């Protein structure tokens, strides 16, 4: 990281300011994940490794839940990848934004593309037509955002054993996802996907290894995609989730 000039620093700072309001939610989500890691009896190193390597909270929590129910490893991985399939949408949308970047930048920035960083990058890309300035803007927001996510996770792992059982910290899982999902839920396909998903999860509750979660998600996507949407898609892909201040990962 040698040879970073003042212009690059100022572009990176602009990126940090753009994503800043979303950071508290990331820290909170990290804390929740970290606490759950300890509840599930996963060792601190593996828990921290997860936040650095996967960088996708919802899927990490799904894996923890799968481990708690003694699901086979394959089921845990597939469930996580289904949940993370949404990143393919960002990746396709980001392709023109990243097109002029050197290969190592593309490969590195891809790892940092959380929901929030992808949305911020797509929203601000046009203000930075110069690819050098643009990539510093993007890394300036995306890298610190992942850093606070990891810091939150590590803090949660450290604090996990201190949190009393009576607090029922597990409630953070549905609450966090309600906070991310419900405010952004507006169109008919999304509402249908949610309703079908919930229905399948509870009807299939006797399936082993948390397979009801996988079945619910897939059924929701399948049925919802047959429901016509009214509004045409905009420049920034709508992932049906909220990305305001205080939102989760």
């Amino acid at each position, binding site marked *: 990281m040698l040879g970073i000039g003042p212009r690059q620093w100022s572009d990176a700072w602009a990126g940090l300011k753009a994503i800043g309001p979303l950071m508290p*939610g990331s820290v909170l989500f990290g804390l929740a994940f970290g606490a759950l890691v300890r509840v599930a009896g996963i060792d601190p190193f*593996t828990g921290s490794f997860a936040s650095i390597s996967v960088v996708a909270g*919802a*899927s*990490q*929590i799904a894996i923890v839940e799968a*481990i708690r*129910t003694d699901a086979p*490893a394959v089921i*845990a991985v597939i469930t*996580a990848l*289904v*949940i*993370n*399939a*949404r*990143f*393919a*949408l960002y*990746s*396709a949308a980001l*392709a*023109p934004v990243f*097109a002029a970047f050197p290969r190592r930048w*593309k*490969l590195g920035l891809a790892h940092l*593309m959380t*929901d929030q960083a992808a949305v911020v990058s797509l929203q601000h890309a046009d203000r930075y037509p110069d690819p050098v300035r643009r990539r510093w803007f993007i890394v300036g927001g995306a890298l610190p955002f992942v850093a606070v996510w990891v810091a939150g996770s590590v803090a949660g792992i450290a604090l996990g054993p201190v949190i009393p059982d009576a607090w*029922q910290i597990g409630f953070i899982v*549905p*609450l*966090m*996802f*309600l*906070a991310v*999902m*419900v*405010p*952004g839920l507006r169109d008919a396909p*999304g509402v249908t*996907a949610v*309703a079908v*998903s919930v229905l399948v999860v*509870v009807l299939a*509750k006797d399936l082993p290894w948390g397979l*009801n979660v996988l079945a*619910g*998600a897939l059924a929701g*996507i*399948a049925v*919802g*995609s047959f429901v016509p949407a009214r509004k045409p*898609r905009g420049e920034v892909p709508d*992932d*049906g*989730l*909220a990305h*305001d*201040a*205080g939102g989760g990962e």
Partner: protein
Amino acid sequence: MKTFLIFLFAAIGTYLIRISGIVIFGKDRQLPPRVARALQLVGPAAMAAIIANSLLLDEGSWRAFGAWHLAALVAVGVALWKRSSGWTMASGAVAFAALLLAGL
């Protein structure tokens, strides 16, 4: 070790998903509309599945009605009213804490 490998494979798979479009698609190639629409529903459908599994069920059985359901209802109400993640989190957490303190 098994847990580590699960996260490792999930990490590799997730990274491949993250680079998929950036590597495959150039400036002008786009996702087929049908695929794009399905991917838009992944977030809501997956989150709803996790919510239902963690809120309505408890390790595969129905969760006894109580603080979890009531606090979640408060959170959903605030989410639809304010359309804000921060308000939803805060109201749900306060409602849950109040219900626990009230002995529910």
